[in-house]
């Protein structure tokens, strides 16, 4: 069952930032806590005992060579993997204090709270407006003028409003690649999720469009817990405040981005960011 629309973010009381060592380097209170996470494709274990805490109002980037498990980790956070057979996760993943791997969790409701943007832009075959309104209409309860306001604010937050405000009724697929991807970001944030996941969101885009999407992410940092997987090290350095390096299914190292990119603790991280492999 999908819950009714939550009150807007700004009406929610913010928990003051804690001073615990783990989160002091991050921007908000812990939003995602992962404990002892293992992931299996059939018999093959592809994530090994992942433990970490991700803060609200922050951008965490995961980097690492292909096949290191960073996309898999992302797909655990909204249980996207459950759409495919023979994939399973073990351990604890708490989002906002609730274990999302439990058997009683409604995945549709979970995915409603945890938005996701994919590598290739995937505008739905409908108008720009309907694309952004899709999630809101699924949940129900928002219509008429309210719906218009929510759609506009999502498009503004995704930094695409000025480009599409005169063609809200044009097909979403008629936009350029970069615009399509920002439309997908707008669609994901229109329902005001708790967490926003992005799986290599700029891998299919040209440099200018990449820049625009990165600017969009920067603007969204104030409101969301954002997790982005990227192949692009410069991008991780540019947009994230926390970076995690993954290698062969292990989380090798996670910490403030400037520290990871300037003085990594682990030899493998150093080798990767200096271009010795990957």
């Amino acid at each position, binding site marked *: 069952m999908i819950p009714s629309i939550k009150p807007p973010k700004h009406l929610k009381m913010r928990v003051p930032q804690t001073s615990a060592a783990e989160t002091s380097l991050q921007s908000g209170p812990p939003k995602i806590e992962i404990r002892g996470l293992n992931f299996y494709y059939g018999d093959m274990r592809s994530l090994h005992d992942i433990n970490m805490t991700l803060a609200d109002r922050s951008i965490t980037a995961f980097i690492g060579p292909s096949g290191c498990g960073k996309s898999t980790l992302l797909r655990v956070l909204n249980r996207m993997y459950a759409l495919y*057979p023979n994939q399973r996760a073990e351990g604890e993943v708490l989002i906002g204090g609730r274990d999302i791997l439990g058997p009683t969790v409604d995945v*549709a409701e979970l995915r409603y709270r945890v938005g996701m943007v994919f590598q*290739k832009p995937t505008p*739905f075959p409908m108008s720009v407006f309907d694309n952004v309104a899709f999630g809101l209409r699924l949940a129900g309860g928002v219509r008429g003028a309210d719906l218009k306001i929510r759609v506009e604010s999502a498009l503004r937050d995704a930094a695409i409003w000025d480009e599409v405000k005169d063609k809200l009724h044009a097909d979403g697929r008629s936009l350029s690649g970069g615009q399509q991807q920002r439309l997908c970001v707008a669609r994901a944030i229109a329902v005001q999720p708790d967490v926003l996941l992005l799986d290599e969101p700029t891998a299919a885009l040209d440099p200018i469009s990449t820049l625009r999407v990165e600017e969009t992410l920067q603007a969204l940092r104030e409101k969301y817990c954002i997790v982005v997987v990227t192949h692009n090290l410069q991008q991780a350095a540019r947009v994230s405040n926390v970076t995690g390096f993954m290698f062969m299914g292990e989380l090798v190292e996670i910490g403030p981005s400037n520290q990871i990119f300037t003085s990594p603790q682990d030899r493998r991280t150093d080798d990767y960011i200096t271009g010795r492999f990957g």
Partner: protein
Amino acid sequence: MNRRALRKAKNGVFLALSLIATMTGLACLAAILWTLLSHGLAGMSWHLFTAMTPPPGGQGGLLNALYGSAVMTLLGILIGSPIGVLAGTYLAEYGRKSRLSTAIRFINDVLLSAPSIIIGLFIYEIVVVRMGHFSAIAGALSLAVLAIPVTLRTTEDMLNLVPIGMKDSSAALGAYPWRTTISVLYPAARSGIVTGLLLAIARISGETAPLLFTALNNQFWSTNLNAPMANLPVVIFQFALSPYKDWQDLAWAGALIITVSILVLSISARVLLALLQSGRGSGR
């Protein structure tokens, strides 16, 4: 002869061979169309669309046959296409890799290439024999059975062409599979599915064999679905084989009408699709 010249010569030979093959195919097609046009146009008149099929030597047209064909084709597509579209949806979205799907896919491929006379016999056995008489509804059913595999196959293929990311994106917003299918996948595959439906109409509107055993034929005007009904293919079949000149002329005219209407159907399908595609930019 050096190597380059040899390769050039080989290229020339293959080019010539494929050109000859293409020309042969096109020439056959042109000959068929020319024969059809020259014989068919001679028999064209307003009577075709206003009068019933005549007895030998009498004045008449094809009105009852045209009506019967339209009714049975329409009924056939109305019964067959929902089954085909839904089954194709099941194969593409729900049972992609299950054993049942593999079996259905195989049987559907067999059905797709099964001689239509077998379908006619099948309906004859289970409908006509039990009802005790030929009927339009039996004709429509046999056409429906022919329409199922075509629509099933195109629907499955077209849904499989929809990028997986689109499906995942919809699921990532909290949509259940049926909602994804109706709101995202069907619109994305719309032009392909519609093309499948039009292909199915084109296929069944010219079928003779399944109607021979089911709807039979009718000399007279009849709108009773529970009685034999006239239809163009069977009328053409009977009239063309008859020794009477006026019947043969009517058969040619009927053949021309079928060909032209299928042509119009295909062209309007393309125009419709083109309009839908270009309409993306504006309409909602």
